[in-house]
């Protein structure tokens, strides 16, 4: 082959590759995020809806049955009338997985915040973000809370969680002594659920982050909330611990809205990480029954 022809061929292949290579634009990200915010605030994930239905089927307490019935009616009504499930449409929390080979055009953080601005405006969602001292509302629910993780591949996965304040207020991080172990973890969680009572809108989802450092435990606890209720923990030991502690939590009798009953918790999920030999960090992230989250893959 002549050198001129070869150069031409190489150029053409490069051009084809560039055309095949996906470029994710800021506009695509903003549009997808706006859609996620609106959708997640109007429809409960199917596993959460099933969890509420199963709770109703198991519950004998008439007051608790009445409340669970109202929550199912509310979910149906929100879907029909395009209304938010709850007036607390949350701070906008994002778990973003960015493929190491993904190509972005524009500022990822700015694009997500723009999506929040659009979604919370267009969807008639409540803006609940304010300065911690002046309490001045930002007016568009930004800035979002964005957790970014690099992963293999070339995709961008964005998971949105509408995190309400009432349940977040009942969450805690504690640093246990290593000797307290699993019994100490169980005691702390049970004490927290009992003290929280009706405040965080049970039936709850509970995310536990065990190990890591102070901040890693908190992040794991929040991430644990995103696992679907019908998806078992992949680690058999953790699966057994989740089952044991869920049983104990539901034995407390807190019940829907704290007014008594069996349905205190729909699911308790654990994520763990290695920790310092001196510590046993534990984070308990409480989520209300309106566990609104949704994800998109770009």
């Amino acid at each position, binding site marked *: 082959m002549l050198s001129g022809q070869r150069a031409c061929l190489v150029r053409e292949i490069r051009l084809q590759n560039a055309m095949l290579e996906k470029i994710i634009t800021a506009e695509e990200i903003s549009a997808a995020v706006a859609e996620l915010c609106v959708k997640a605030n109007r429809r409960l994930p199917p596993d959460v809806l099933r969890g509420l239905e199963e709770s109703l089927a198991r519950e004998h307490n008439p007051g608790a049955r009445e409340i669970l019935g109202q929550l199912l009616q509310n979910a149906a009504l929100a879907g029909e009338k395009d209304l938010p499930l709850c007036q607390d449409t949350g701070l906008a929390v994002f778990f973003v997985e960015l493929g190491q080979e993904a190509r972005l055009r524009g500022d990822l953080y700015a694009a997500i915040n723009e999506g929040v601005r659009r979604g919370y405006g267009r969807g008639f969602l409540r803006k609940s973000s304010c300065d911690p001292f002046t309490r001045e509302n930002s007016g568009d629910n930004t800035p979002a809370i964005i957790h970014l993780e690099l992963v293999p591949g070339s995709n961008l996965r964005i998971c949105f969680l509408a995190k309400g304040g009432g349940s977040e207020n009942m969450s805690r991080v504690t640093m246990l002594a290593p000797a307290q172990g699993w019994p100490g973890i169980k005691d702390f969680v049970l004490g927290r659920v009992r003290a929280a009572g009706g405040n965080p809108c049970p039936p709850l989802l509970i995310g536990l982050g065990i190990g890591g450092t102070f901040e890693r435990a908190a992040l794991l606890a929040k991430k644990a909330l995103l696992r679907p209720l019908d998806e078992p923990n992949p680690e058999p030991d953790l699966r057994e611990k989740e089952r044991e502690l869920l049983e104990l939590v539901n034995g407390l*009798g807190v019940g829907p809205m704290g007014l008594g009953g069996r349905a205190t918790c729909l699911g308790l999920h654990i994520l763990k990480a290695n920790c310092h030999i001196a510590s046993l960090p534990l984070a308990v992230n409480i989520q209300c029954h309106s566990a609104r989250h949704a994800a998109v893959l770009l």
Partner: protein
Amino acid sequence: MSRPVKITAPLQGSAGEQIVESLRAGDSVLLSGVIYTARDAAHQRLFRLLRAGEPAPFELRGAVIYYCGPTPAPPGRPIGSAGPTTSYRMDAFAPLLHAHGVKATIGKGPRGQEVRDSLREHRALYFGATGGAGALLAACVQEARVLAFPDLGPEAIHELKVEDFPLLVINDAQGGDLFGLFELGSRP
């Protein structure tokens, strides 16, 4: 569940007094009439006004206050989603409002001892509404308008006209406490 008792807000005069005295913790209620939303920021402002001896933006005597920050009203609706927020954050303000004549508050979750004492002293009620049922509860709101503090956005005081708003008496004026029946820790 007991048959719901129909009541009308505001709870003024002898009729209002009679309702307050007759209801008991655990009773189901359907409330119609006019109520006012106020949550954290609006309570701070109300508190400052009353402390300064200035009038509140609405008649407090007989008033029913709803701890709620609704979502914006979409076109063609009086209000968006409008469920209760957690009440304990307003505990510090409740006794002064009771002293100025507020006859009932609506929220979710238990109240502290200072509020339970104040309810008895000032003859008032605390109702629970179902948290996270904001779309369902909004269906009972017929009219809504921002009455005061529009700069607070979702935390502004809204005047709501409601019909058959479903409530549960949590604390009555006789010291009855629905949460107390479950002997759970009442404060977070």
